[in-house]
């Protein structure tokens, strides 16, 4: 495992290009594009203000940089550095900006969700979509980029409009039986749309592409409902995380619940492995040979950690939620299926230090990782079942079915990993801190041996 040198960064804006060749990062009002392998600067663009949002177009040719404060979007071309484009939303303001899947249109949401403006880079045409709903996840594109579903609010009722992305023609428009629609998401196969209600009511609706209601699912009433939704990459399962600390898995044939995963704070099942992160004294670390690369890099920071297999029964640290505040820290807030569908990683917000990994084939809990500090984010390797976790400490944690490791990020000072993102082919991870970022390269073989050694040591 090797680490690149540390580069400057602001706003946690660091993105791999969809084709995997480039890495765009923002430093204040500058956009830096580097080659992923050499990390040489390929292009450097200067925007008008501090960049608040940056996004690659799907064909990796353009990058948009949004400056919400100024209501501005600037687009840069990688092929033609001299090419420029500036979109000004004027007094309407700007709260969100994104690419359409074809990479030739930009969708800007104005303030107060008055409308969505669709700017085309090919023609002069500008389209407006009225009545977009202000919600968590109001826009969803199908994975093939053909269709866009948009949540709308008209006459105090929720509606969904399905547009054809190629010419922004309205394909379907239907109202949904929701009190207050909170989000929608296409299944990866692009044929089913999941629409869920706000947290006040547990309700999820499944629509076909042609607007037919396929099924409605409601687990319980009179309590806070859905907190997160995730489709499995095969579109076979729909995982619904809710405020009751459970994940319910629906199947794609009958849309009935297959099973529910309860996130209990005490685990007493010898089949489940609980990895507990533990502080390691530096002396012990000197005799610890599993990370030769790490030692080769040099200075070992003081607080190293390692994973220990906890003996049953294990009780995880629970956070007492504050009852009289909005958005209580309870329930399953983050979920992610592994790219091969075999695992589901979840995080229960009132057990902030733990990541649960569920075996989807056997529909049971597989592994629990308990960190020393609250988990900030986790992401699956796009190529293999390998989960990277960061907790805001100077370590990055990797789990695979073979075992797990905690890796110290080298460098002077404290590199607090707040976020991370995988490269497309899964051989490197960008680790983002507040002001810096670095790349972590994983040689597949090296990682394997590391895992093996870990298995020996634990």
């Amino acid at each position, binding site marked *: 495992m090797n680490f690149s040198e540390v580069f400057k960064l602001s706003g946690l804006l660091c993105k791999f290009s969809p084709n995997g060749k480039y890495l765009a990062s923002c430093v204040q009002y500058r956009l830096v594009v580097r080659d992923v392998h050499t990390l040489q600067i390929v292009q450097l663009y200067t925007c008008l203000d501090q960049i608040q949002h940056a996004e690659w177009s799907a064909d990796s040719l353009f990058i948009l940089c949004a400056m919400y404060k100024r209501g501005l979007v600037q687009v840069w071309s990688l092929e033609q550095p001299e*090419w*420029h*484009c500036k979109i000004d939303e004027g007094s309407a303001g700007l709260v969100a900006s994104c690419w359409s899947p074809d990479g030739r249109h930009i969708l800007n949401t104005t303030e107060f969700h*008055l409308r969505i403006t669709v700017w085309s*880079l090919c023609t002069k045409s500008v389209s407006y979509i009225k009545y977009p709903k202000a919600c968590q996840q109001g826009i969803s594109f199908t994975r093939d980029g053909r269709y866009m579903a948009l949540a709308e609010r008209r006459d105090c009722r929720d509606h969904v409009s399905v547009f054809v992305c190629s*010419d922004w023609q309205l*394909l379907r428009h239907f109202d949904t039986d929701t009190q207050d629609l909170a989000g929608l998401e296409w299944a990866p196969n692009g044929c089913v749309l999941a629409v869920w209600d706000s947290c006040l009511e547990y309700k999820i609706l499944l629509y076909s592409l042609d607007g037919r209601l396929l099924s409605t699912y409601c687990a319980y009433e009179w309590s806070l409902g859905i907190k997160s939704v995730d489709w499995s990459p095969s579109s076979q399962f729909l995982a619904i995380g809710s405020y009751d600390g459970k994940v319910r898995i629906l199947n794609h044939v009958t849309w009935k619940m297959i099973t529910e995963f309860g996130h209990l704070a005490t685990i007493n099942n010898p089949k489940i492995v609980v990895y507990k992160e533990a502080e390691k004294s530096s002396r012990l670390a000197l005799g610890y040979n599993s990370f030769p690369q790490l030692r080769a890099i040099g200075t070992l920071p003081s607080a190293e950690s390692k994973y220990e297999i906890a003996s049953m029964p294990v009780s995880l640290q629970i956070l007492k939620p504050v009852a009289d505040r909005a958005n209580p820290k309870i329930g399953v807030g983050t979920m992610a299926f592994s790219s091969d569908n075999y695992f589901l990683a979840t995080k229960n917000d009132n057990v902030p230090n733990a990541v649960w990994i569920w075996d989807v084939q056997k529909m049971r809990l597989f592994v629990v990782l308990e960190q020393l500090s609250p988990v900030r984010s986790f992401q699956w390797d796009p190529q293999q079942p390998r989960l990277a976790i960061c907790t805001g400490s100077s370590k990055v944690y990797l789990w695979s079915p073979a075992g797990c490791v905690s890796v110290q990020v080298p460098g002077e000072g404290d590199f607090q990993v707040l976020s991370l993102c995988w490269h497309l082919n899964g051989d490197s991870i960008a680790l983002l801190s507040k002001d810096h970022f670095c790349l972590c390269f994983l040689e597949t073989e090296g990682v394997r041996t590391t895992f093996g050694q870990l298995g020996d040591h634990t």
Partner: protein
Amino acid sequence: MGDWMTVTDPALSSESKITSQYTSETKMSPSSLYSQQVLCSSIPLSKNVHSFFSAFCTEENIEQSISYLDQELTTFGFPSLYEDSKGKETKRGLNVVAVLNCMNELLILQRKNLLAQENVETQNLKLGSDMGHLQNCYAKLKEQLETSRREMSGLQERDRQLQCKNRNLHQLLKNEKDEVQKLQNIIASRATQYNHDMKRKEREYNKLKERLHQLVMNKKDKKIAMEILNYVGRADGKRGSWRTDKTEARNEDEMYTILLSDYEYRQKQILMENAELKKVLQQMKKEMISLLSPQKQRPRERTDDNTGTALSDVEEDAGEMNRESIWDLSCETVREQLTNSIRKQWRILKSHVEKLDNQVSKVHLEGVNDEDVISRQDHEQETEKLEVEIQQCKEMIKTQQQLLQQQLATACDDDTSSLLRDCYLLEEKERLKEEWSLLKEQKKNFEKERRSFIEAAIRLGLERKAFEEERAIWLKQQFLSMTNFDLQNSENVKLFSAFSGSSDRDNHTVHSRPRARKPHSVANGSPNCTSKLTKSLPASPSTSDFCQTRSCVSEHSSINILNITPEETKPNQVGRECTNLKWSVASRPASQEGCYNGRSLTYANSHIHKDNLP
């Protein structure tokens, strides 16, 4: 009492009897008073009696007293105190005998009464104590009753309270339920109100939004614009097309084709899955049939209806399956049959498995009995027992150690140790004494045996003598008769004797035992081997010694035999012969023994003498 009086006193006239009765009751005589007093109180009687009597009879009223007493006595059935008189007019004299009799009887009566009284008193006491006991019991029971009553009342009180509480709780529950209902209603109403408000607010919001939209958009905001260097080509390289009905239709078509392809894909998957499942099903079916068919015969023999019919179905199903494989995927037509057959087979299999299970459990049980497989419980019990034993043993060892230590500690105490030693010696002494007595007994036995042996030997000696005499006589006769014939006959005789001698020698070692007594003194090595055997024999200490000596003797005697000169063989031979004759001796009448007594001594002497020769 009246009857009794009439019987005992027939002489008295009925008249006088009545009068006497009358008088005794009417006249309150001092005696009657006394009798009454007796009834009332028995203890102060003895003293009163004397004083009373002294007052009763004085010098003046003797006559009257006597008559009075007479009257009284007659009324009580005693004979009259006066002598029987012939005439009425003559004054009757006092009959002293009668008086004495009466007195005696009265005394006896008195004693009896006293006895009875005593009995009654003791009984009274007993009854009194019984009474007291019963009263105690009564009091106790009463107390118990009281306490239980109190308890009962307490319990009743508690019950009442609990019921009260229960009622209260019920009431509370009801209230709570009402509350919940109310709250639910409130929630519902609030929800509706909230929704209503929300809608209102949203409408307002929408209005505002609309207005804002108009304001912002209608101003012809110059700022809203896109500055672009040059337009780029579309990603697909095509030109953008106009939105027309055509495109709309095309979009629809596309959408449907996407949906269709998705459904087709899913259907294909499902079909594949179905086919695989079918394959598995058929395989299972085949296996089931093959599994069940060998069992076909047995259940039929048992004439088990269910299985019989089911099995026939199995056969049908087997045929069906073939058909099925021909039809392959057209499942719908055969679905019902398929499910039915599967169900039947499953039932058969289930029953079969259950049967097997039963068998297995039986076998297992038997196995447990046969092989003495220790069940876990037994095992645990055993281990527990063993553990307890170990514990006990440990404790014992500990106590022993303690005792040892104590002993060691007290060993320096001389007095106690000496005492202990004394005890020990005493014990030993006792044991030695016992042994000594045992030995004595043994000695006596040995002596007895020896005596009997000696007697037998003497007898044998006598017999031998007799035998020799007989032979001598016989030989003499023979010789006398032979003298008439040639010398050859005499040689024959010699030969015969030699022959008999050799045969005796063969037997010698075998029959050495009876001879053993004689050379015993020799074996012991005692220098003074006197002619008296009786003296040397008691010295034998034990049976084992005896045995040893015997073996020595046998050796010794055999040596003797080897060294024996022809002259000496004769007496020796005789001894041997006597042993051979032992059996015959037993059968002989005892009367003969006495006459040989004199000779036996001489024999014994000569024999011992001879043994000492080597």
